Every structure is written in structure tokens, then in C-alpha cells.
């Protein structure tokens, strides 16, 4: 299923063309074709095992499709555009033994030549205190999740891929995160996020993409309010 492109092809931020992904004999994605426009927020829905995380990992360049073609920012290999992509997984992708600020300083140093946010500023943006003198291992799951988002925001990516960003978060923290993402989207940046909590992401969803058994079941316009 090819999503109708509303704008010229050159304005497409990322495109999957007939992409399938096999893990052994199991097909996690089956002939998925979809285009992601800049400045829009796509909410990916689907039951467990529908292929949402696999789709995000392919867009991030962490997985290669078994068949089909992926283009991100005009690059046939998403990996080539990796410094323009921010990816947040279920796991925090940070070191337990370091503080939040140490973790962020570490990752900020690995983006030479890219104007990164100051680690303390990124932490403030997600509602964390940069002065907190605790290692990440002593954080709650929700705080780790926010630190993980701060890591992603650090490099000011143009394409934000978020896998279950609201999991382990209380309702108020999740709402704050949605507001932050709304602000991020207004800066002409693209967000693709997976969630099981559709109502939480609804205020920023320009499109709702539903996957079922590795296929695109539907792609509907959302009704964003933020």
C-alpha cells in the first residue's frame, strides 16, 4: 500500500518502497510502502509483533530490509543520513553507571561538526534537573525514558523515531512529552512514533498508520490539536 504523497517527491523526508524484512522464515514486514512528509507526525499503531519497531529500526538504518528500498533524506542507505536521525528505543540506550548529564555529554561529543544542544538544556527540556547527582541506574523508568528523549533531542535531528516513548511514564509526564514533541514538530521536523496509547499521541498525530501482521492496514489523517 502506497500512501498518497501530498507533496512533490523531493519534499519527502523518508520513503519505504515495497520493503519486507525477514528474520529467518518469519516476515516482520511484508511489502510495506509508505512516504513520510517533513514537518508531520506519524503515529504507528498495531498489536505486538505487527512490525512497528522493525519499521522504525529500518528507518534508523539499524536494520537492512530483506527486500525493497528505503530512502531517507535522499540517501538510499539510511545509515548515510544517520546524524540527521534521532532514534529512541524501548531501552534507554544509556549507561547505568553515569549520571544523565555525563551520558549526554558523552553522546554530544560524538557529533563532530553538528550544533548540538547543551546537555543541561536538553535535560531541562524534558523536565529533568541537570544538577541531579545520581547515576542513571538509580533513576525511575520514567526518568530514564525522559533522559533517553533528551539524548535524542541533543543532536537536533530532523527525523525523530520514537519507539513507545510513553511507556513507563505517568500521565502528566506523558502529556509534557507530547507538548515537547508538538513544539519539535512545529520546527518542520518529522516524528514517527509507535504507541499502544493512541489517545496520548492523538493531539499531535497528523497521520495514523496502522500495521497488521507486517502489512500496512490503514493510513488515515489524524486530527491534531497541538
Amino acid at each position, binding site marked *: 500500500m502506497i500512501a498518497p504523497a501530498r507533496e512533490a517527491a523531493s519534499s519527502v523526508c523518508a520513503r519505504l518502497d515495497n520493503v519486507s524484512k525477514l528474520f529467518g522464515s518469519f516476515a516482520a514486514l511484508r511489502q510495506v510502502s509508505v512516504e513520510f512528509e517533513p514537518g508531520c507526525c506519524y503515529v504507528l499503531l498495531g498489536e505486538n509483533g505487527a512490525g512497528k519497531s522493525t519499521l522504525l529500526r529500518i528507518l*534508523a*538504518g*539499524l*536494520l*537492512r530490509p530483506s527486500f525493497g528500498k528505503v530512502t531517507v533524506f535522499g540517501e538510499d542507505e539510511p*545509515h548515510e543520513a*544517520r*546524524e540527521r*536521525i*534521532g*532514534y529512541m*528505543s524501548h*531501552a*534507554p*540506550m*544509556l*549507561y*547505568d*553507571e*553515569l549520571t544523565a548529564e*555525563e551520558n549526554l555529554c*558523552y*553522546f554530544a*561529543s*560524538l*557529533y*563532530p561538526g*553538528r550544533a548540538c544542544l547543551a546537555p543541561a538544556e536538553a535535560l531541562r527540556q524534558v523536565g529533568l534537573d541537570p544538577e541531579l547527582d545520581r*547515576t542513571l541506574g538509580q533513576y525511575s523508568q520514567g526518568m530514564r525514558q525522559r533522559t533517553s528523549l533528551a*539524548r535524542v533531542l541533543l543532536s537536533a535531528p530532523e527525523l525523530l523515531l520514537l519507539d513507545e516513548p510513553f511507556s513507563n511514564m505517568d500521565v502528566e509526564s506523558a502529556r509534557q512529552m507530547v507538548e515537547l514533541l508538538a513544539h519539535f514538530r512545529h520546527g518542520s521536523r518529522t516524528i514517527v512514533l509507535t504507541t499502544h496509547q493512541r489517545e496520548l499521541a492523538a493531539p499531535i498525530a497528523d497521520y495514523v498508520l496502522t500495521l497488521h501482521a507486517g502489512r500496512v492496514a490503514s493510513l488515515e489523517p489524524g486530527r491534531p490539536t497541538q
Partner: protein
Amino acid sequence: MTRALWTHLAKDLRIEWRSLDALVSMLFFSGLVVVLFSIAFDPRGAFSQQIAGGVLCVATMFASVSALNQAWAREIRHQVMDAQRMVPAPGAELYLAKVLANFLFVTIVQIILAPFFFIFYNLHIAGQAWLLALVLPLGTWALVANGIFFAALSIRSRNRELLLSLILFPIFIPALLAMVQATTAILTGESDPTLWIKLLLGYDIIFTTVSLLLFDVVFHAE
């Protein structure tokens, strides 16, 4: 030294300083090997001079493997490696930083172990003692440079700890042989260790270069 290399190295040193995981496990393990061998063999007389080089190298090797098995554990635990794969900094710098950090840890263990080693085996150096300061770092580098590379290669395997030993030990044999022969030659003073030291140096250069060239492929593999 580039900024990314220093960043990775500083991070590894900071984490080890806080946890002491690698150092403590290596110290206990190598200490046990030295004590057990001193019980198994009579540590008096000329015989101890003959076997001491081998015992030191084997103790270093087994102790290093216990740390090498954990070298990428923190990167795997919370998918930190995925975040590292997404940054534009070259993977080779991450590899080199890991090698440097682990080389430092093993060297610290060797320095702590050395006095006990000389006491347990009643050693006196008949050859040129300063050459030990060349042989041990070269041998340690050979072990760690290969170990970090193969640990990354076996990281996605369920039996990664077994797999690392199975891949690493056969490849390390030439360096182990050179390290043992050179150390024994220095301790006994009966032969010239120069050839073995050259072999170690050549081994280090070749395997470090190959690992640096191939690491990005291993690092970015699914």
C-alpha cells in the same frame, strides 16, 4: 588522539573507576592462577625459572578473557550500542578506545601481580630485566586487541563467552608462544629474546591494523 577516541576512553575509564568490575575479577582470577600453579609445581630452583614465563602469560590470558567477555556487556545491556551505531563518529575509534582501556586494566593487574609472582616462584632475573617492560605490554596488546575485536564479533551469539575463547585462543597462539619464549629467555638469560620480541611487534601491528579496518563492518552488522 581524536576527540571521539578520547570521549570513548574517558567514558570507559570513568565507568570502571566507579564499578571496578573488570579490575577486581581479573585480580582475583590471575591471583588464583598464580597461587594454584605454585602449589601444583615445586616453585624452587631452576625449574621455576623455566615455567614462570608460561605461568605469567597464562595467568594474564585467562584474567584478560574474564574482562574481555564483559567488554561490550554494558553496550549490549540497554542497547547503548545502537545509539553508538547512530552517531557519525567512526566505529574504529570506539574499538581503539576499548582496546586502550582494557590494555590499561590488564597492565594494572600485571603491576599488582608482579611482586607476588616473584615471591611465589622465588624468581631472580638472569637476563635484561628492562626487556620485560617491552614483552609484557606487547603481549598484552596482542591479547586485548584481538579480544576486543572478537568479543564484538561474538556479541550477538547466545554462547558468546564460549565463542570468544574458541576464536581468540587459536589466533593468539603465535603471540602467546612469542610472549612465553621471550619472558623465559629474559628470566633465565639463556637465550636472546630479540627475535620473539620482533615477532610480537609484527603480530601487534598486523592484527591491530586488520581489526581497525574490519571493525566498522562488525560493528554495523545486524
